């Protein structure tokens, strides 16, 4: 039986990796990937807490994770749409070069 802390640590590690990627990479798509990883880490936490929580039959954590997955799908669609739109406009997805504050 794996203790809850194990899952939490893995989630924390994934979160840190995602954050690091989002902070370091220059490609906007990879930043988005990093954010997806962070979201997944959060989902892992939700599921883990649901599994080890006092009332798993209430399904709260599970529902939260399912909704979070759905919202993440929407977020990915909009985010990638934005990136494509930015790319059309600026001909690059390099975040270091997309730093103008006006169109």
């Amino acid at each position, binding site marked *: 039986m794996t203790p809850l802390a194990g899952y939490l*640590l893995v989630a924390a590690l994934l979160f840190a990796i995602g954050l690091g990627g989002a*902070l370091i990479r220059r490609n906007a798509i990879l930043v988005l990937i990093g954010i997806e*990883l962070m979201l997944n880490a959060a989902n892992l936490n939700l599921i883990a807490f649901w599994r080890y929580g006092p009332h798993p039959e209430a399904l709260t954590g599970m529902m939260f994770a399912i909704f979070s997955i759905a919202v993440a799908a929407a977020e990915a*669609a909009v985010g990638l*749409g934005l990136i494509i739109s930015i790319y059309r406009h600026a001909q690059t997805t390099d975040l270091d070069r997309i730093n103008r504050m006006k169109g």
Partner: protein
Amino acid sequence: MSIPFFVISALTVAGGLAAMTLKNTVHCALALSVAFAGIALLFLSLDAQFAGFAQILIYIGAVAILVVFAILLTRGSETPTDGVHSGTWLVGLAIAAAVFAVLGWAVLASAPGLHDEAAAPVVTVRDIGNALMGRYVLPLEIVALLLTAATIGAVIVAMHEKARTK
């Protein structure tokens, strides 16, 4: 701690690391799907069958594909010549490490108080469906609205300029 957990975690973390460090963007996306699969397996090991399969269906079947498409549409698969990391990558790395340190600290600090033993909950898909249609019906409807709005929004954002240039 069991061996499957270690294997799966290692797979997930390796996938995540690869996704964030590889030079070729497409490789990153593929590594990302490995990480997604790993997380789905972690869900399964937590007896969350539905969430695990939903994770595979949505993240690998949709999000990863979407990412790949976006990469191809923005010519991101060509590795840039001037490096893939931002100029201040060291700062970013430090901050990420700090975040992990804080989170790990928090987990370890509270570890003694956590429940480690719990009977596997018997949750069928039917229960989840009933919950979605009963107690959580309002969030479900809102998510449906959100998804619709997001779909329309994504299409409009991505099509806008094209419509103008035509």
